[in-house]
């Protein structure tokens, strides 16, 4: 395997990492603030994908532009889910929470199956297939936009968390819940917003992926474990950790694909995940 292939793999991995980072910072909010393992997270990504798919198919809206619709839409969906389903069980044993989100995943997947059928769909934008060539490395434009878009949105979120009052309140709640309550922060509102933002992030990631990924009701499965790996490896509650985690997963996935035959390469991110869980469960960057 030559250097060029290695370089290509690294670049691919980084590109993918950008999207994973976006998924990660969103899940970091949910997992970090509310301590909920949301098994429906992959399905929410799927919803993001389908949203932009239909906007493109019916209204010819370019997927990247559709972000302006899908992001608020998924935010709203997240808030509704949080209010109706998550909030009632926030104090319940974690197993019940896990199973509830599992039920949500089943519901969303099969709703999509019912409404739109099992067939794989794709979105074909006019500029599909455009490839940039930088120093002999081929970069698919769509993947690059996804990468850039992912990081950009993550940056927006970062600014929001750092600079706005709401953002600070969210960070306070995730670090010290009792203290936050004590200073009068409405934890319920924080939860609503956090879950909404987390959902919006993963929905946006879905939209960014739509132009070059095959779409089906079960596409969420692919990202479910990955999303959690990103967050845990980076360190629960750490924004930067989620970003780094995204890139680590992207890189290990991509390198695994070139180093090992077939799809065996996928074992590498999983093994790394288990190793980190065993030896540094608080994550690499906390």
């Amino acid at each position, binding site marked *: 395997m030559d250097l060029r292939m290695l370089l290509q793999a690294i670049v691919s991995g980084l590109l993918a990492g950008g999207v994973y980072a976006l998924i990660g910072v969103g899940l970091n909010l949910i*997992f970090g603030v509310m*301590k*909920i*393992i949301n098994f429906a997270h992959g399905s929410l990504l799927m919803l993001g994908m389908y949203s932009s798919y239909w906007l493109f198919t019916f209204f010819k809206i370019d997927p990247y532009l559709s972000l302006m619709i899908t992001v608020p839409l998924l935010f709203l969906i997240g808030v509704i889910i949080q209010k109706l*389903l998550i909030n*009632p*069980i926030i*104090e*319940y*044993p*974690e*197993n*019940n*929470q*896990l*199973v*509830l989100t*599992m*039920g*949500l995943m*089943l*519901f969303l*997947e*099969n*709703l999509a*199956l*019912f409404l739109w*059928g*099992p067939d794989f769909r794709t979105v074909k934008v006019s500029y599909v297939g455009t490839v940039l060539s930088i120093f002999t490395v081929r970069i698919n434009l769509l993947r690059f936009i996804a990468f850039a878009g992912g990081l950009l949105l993550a940056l927006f979120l970062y600014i929001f968390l750092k600079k706005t009052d709401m953002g600070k309140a969210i960070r306070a709640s995730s670090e010290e819940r009792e203290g936050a309550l004590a200073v009068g922060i409405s934890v319920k509102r924080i939860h609503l917003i956090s879950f909404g933002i987390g959902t919006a992030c993963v929905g946006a990631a879905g939209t960014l992926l739509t132009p070059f990924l095959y779409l089906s*009701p079960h596409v969420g*499965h692919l990202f479910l*474990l990955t999303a*959690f*790996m990103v967050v*845990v490896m980076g360190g*629960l509650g750490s924004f930067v950790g989620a970003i780094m985690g995204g890139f680590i997963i992207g890189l290990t996935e991509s390198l695994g694909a070139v180093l090992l*035959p*077939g*799809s*065996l390469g*996928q*074992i590498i991110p*999983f*093994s790394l*995940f*288990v190793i980190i*869980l*065993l*030896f540094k*469960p*608080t994550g690499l960057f906390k």
Partner: protein
Amino acid sequence: MSAQNYNPLKKWNYWLVFLAAACGLSWVSGLLSSYLLHVVILILYFAFLGSAWNIVSGYAGQFSFGHTAFFGVGAYFSSLLYVESGVSPWIGMIAGGLLAAGLGAFIGYLTFRFKLKGAFFALSTFAFSEMLRIIALNWSVTGKAMGILIPLKQGSSLQDFQFASKLPYYYIILSMLILVLFVSYGLDHSRLGYYFKAIREDEEAAGSLGVNILKYKTIALVISAFFTALGGTFYAQYMFYIDPDIAFGTNVTIEMIVRTMLGGVGTVFGPLIGSAVLESISEVMRSFLGEYKGVHIMFYAVLLILVMIFFPHGVMGLVKKKGKEDSRDITKQHELVGNQESE
């Protein structure tokens, strides 16, 4: 010797009802249509898997989201032994169970030694099952994406664990279920079982009372893995085909968890009740809405969500509540993430 003082009759009640139902069903089983028998087999099969999962996740409280790893190991191992070397699937079943038990010991030792709990434990088991899926997908021995096809024999053959009619399958899975229920019941009233439950309720306190946490968690996982693998072999011999998605995919895991939680996790009959309820609803939905893909699952997903919110202890929790005045509290015993000790 039962350690429960209240109403020992109540406990036996469940067994009586179950055995009566089993006998009654067996009586008429010859008259049941093949389709109906299939539904009954599914109920018993899922109840079996759920009960196996229940041992480590319900009794010992270690929520596993990767149990399909053991299922797949059992299914593939017995099938390979049969297809490649002609070994009877019965022997393959036990062998697969032992192999899965070994895998359980390995996973258990790793994860429990490093004190993985709650969500972290669940995710690590998920990662393990995914790794096995990828291996099966890429290994020529397991047939890669093609999976393994169990060759059909003419007629029935006990030795080959293959039968022309569904009836023998019914009796086999019924026996397997009775066995695992017996084990569950035994655990419920034994030192081992009490240690499992103590670990579930409060690990730290359990440790201070002399419970070797690592040892007993691992034992729970090993027992659970063994039985889960048996279910894998049964599946392979009943459906005649397995592939990486079937054997190591999330479907099996979800089915195990959903039915048990619905019926009542941590109880002997919870998984069976959950399985019966879910399957019945599934069938009713199917008959009303036809084979419309996924709708019946949507309905039972909604049911699951509602149950988790309003009856967190499942059907058994409801039944027990009516039975005695003291109900079990829904207290959050473990902080999901706070369980990860970091000093």
